[in-house]
């Protein structure tokens, strides 16, 4: 339950991952407020150090959002592991064609005729005696 009292610094992702959802949303809100106040200070005339902090603040917000979304999707994947139907954005993406291609099992299927042929006349290997 660590609260961020030193806001104008770089928030570490490690610390964020220890927090739960409610705390993360709260931290996100605080980070956005920080960014908003920095923008106001820029309008009121600010030193170059403050201008750098704007970039840091934006990246902090991105970091928090990344952690939120990552942990959310991880949990959802666990939840849907045993289920038959999963949401579309949790399914394999690849490409449209690859998703519709034959599965490896389907490709390996042979007709009975071919199977018998292969059994009766397998590819022989020959060697020349040196």
């Amino acid at each position, binding site marked *: 339950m660590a609260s961020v009292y030193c806001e104008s610094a770089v928030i570490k992702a490690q610390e964020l991952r220890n927090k739960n959802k409610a705390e993360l949303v709260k931290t996100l809100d605080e980070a*956005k*407020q920080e*960014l*908003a*106040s920095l*923008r*106001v*200070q*820029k*309008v*009121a005339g600010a030193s170059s150090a403050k201008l750098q902090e704007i970039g840091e603040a934006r990246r902090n917000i991105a970091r928090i959002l990344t952690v939120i979304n990552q942990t*959310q*999707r991880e949990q*959802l994947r666990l939840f*849907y592991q045993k*289920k*038959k*139907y*999963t*949401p*579309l*954005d*949790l399914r394999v993406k690849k490409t449209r064609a690859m998703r519709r291609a034959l599965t490896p099992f389907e490709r390996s299927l042979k007709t009975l005729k071919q199977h018998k042929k292969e059994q009766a006349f397998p590819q022989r290997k020959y060697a020349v005696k040196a």
Partner: protein
Amino acid sequence: MFSLAANKAQAAKKAALKGVHSKTVRKVRTNTSFRTPKTLKLARVPKYTRKSVPHLPRMDQYRVVRQPLNTESSMKKIEDHNTLTFLVDVKANKNQIKQAVKKLYDVDAVKINTLIRPNGTKKAYVRLTADADALDIANRIGFI
């Protein structure tokens, strides 16, 4: 007794085989055109949600209001007309701006006028209620 039961049974069999033929009743149609009849419409029961998790609100107050303006003309507006000027997201509408200003600075707006500047950003003139002083609010926000 036996014959009665047998008769009954035979009658029942005959009726069952023949079926019930009532007189066919034709509906009276008072209109010349045949309109599609209303059928049962079932509600959707999806087997899975299409998106795993709904998105966080995209147009929150921090996205709507970008920065306040402290140009000469905006300062004049603060003193004379009790209005604050903001640069605002282009996709924001007046209602969203009103809500955002209320959430961020805890002030009510009487009316909002917006325009899109020639450089593509949106400017919003937010007139505050009489009980709120624009100069006070501006000092509180910190951009004077």
